[in-house]
């Protein structure tokens, strides 16, 4: 593959990563997975219609399949890999496991990122606010019931911790 762009740097999960020999059309999703060894973010549609590729970019939840990686320099990117430190699950992650919010798990990273983002902006969301916040994350296995339970549980635990 002929290099088609200059070397550029991306700040991902607090670290600078160098990207070289890339093709200019590569999405951020592709670069994260195939060049930066961060395969936690998943791709299921390449169109922004499923949310599996959700990452946080400059404090906003976006679909990384719709971001041209080379334009994301100077942005702060956080992926699912940044959530659990030393393998300790966040309350959201733990609740997903305990409440049955995970079946095949393909939508899970995108969902967890979207929910962590929601709760960082709105720690006590209503049922409707939760549903709207994850309306861009498709899950084909669970029918969402256990996912709603997981969010409820995470919210309760966090509220208990902060009170």
């Amino acid at each position, binding site marked *: 593959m002929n290099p088609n762009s200059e070397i550029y740097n991306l700040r991902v999960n607090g670290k600078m990563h160098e990207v070289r020999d890339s093709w*200019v059309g590569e999405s951020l999703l592709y670069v994260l997975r195939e060049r930066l060894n961060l395969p936690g973010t998943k791709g299921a549609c390449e169109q922004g219609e499923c949310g599996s590729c959700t990452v946080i970019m400059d404090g906003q939840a976006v679909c990384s399949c719709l*971001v*041209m990686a080379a334009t994301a320099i100077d*942005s702060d990117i956080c992926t699912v890999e940044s959530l659990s430190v030393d393998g300790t699950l966040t309350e959201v992650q733990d609740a997903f496991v305990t409440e049955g919010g995970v079946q095949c798990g393909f939508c899970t990273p995108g969902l967890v990122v979207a929910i962590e983002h929601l709760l960082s902006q709105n720690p006590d969301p209503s049922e409707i606010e939760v549903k709207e916040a994850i*309306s*861009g994350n498709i899950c084909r296995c669970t029918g969402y019931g256990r996912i709603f339970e997981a969010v409820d549980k995470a919210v309760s635990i966090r509220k208990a911790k902060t009170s």
Partner: protein
Amino acid sequence: MVEINFNHRKPTDVIALRRLDELKSVHIDAKKSLVTIGAGLPYQQMEHGEIAQYIPALAQAARTVGSPQIRSAGSIGGNLGTCSPAGDALPVLSALDATVNLQSADASRSVSVHDFMVGVKRNARLPGEIIVSTTLPIVSGWQGYAKVGVRNAMVISVASCCLVVDRTNGTITVALGAVGPTIIRCRETESWLASQIDLKTKATVSPNLLQEFGDRIANESKPIDDHRSTAAYRRHAVCVLARRLLTRANSQ
């Protein structure tokens, strides 16, 4: 980016506008009652705050765009650049007679949104121009937006409608999305309704008038059959949406 992912477009040189704050700005000109919205302002930021206050129909339309992730990144510039007749914000721009502000290396110009939207995915942007912003008036009166989709979230519009009542001037504007090659302004129906009732007041519209209003709106639409819906349904949908929006306009 979708086109690149799908191998339909192969860029070799790209200029990214992401970091230009000017493209994300909102400017309110209180004296002229105008709002200028940067072409790169994410939809999410239109759902609340100043834009929701001054242009509620745009806030409503913004909330229907894609998903929260899409709304974090998608913008009016995207809707204008793509110029699909199903673009969610476009009926609002049309109903408000927005202007599109363009900039090239040596010149800038403003074009009425009606002249900017030329056809299906075709606009009047010249090579070398970027869409900088769009300017919309602050109107005194009710405005609202409604969009039909087959699912309760994240849908491409099957039919949409924006209705704006200008109580100061006694006029009404109605714009339709996804029922023609570009956004349709129902000018004939607008002038017909203005001749039937006094739009400066919130008078109840009689059932007969409401019925005829909807039929006239439907007659001005030019929908097609496609894999998302049928022409007959779309015509019916805009009729219903227009009636409901007019009822809401007069019921507060």
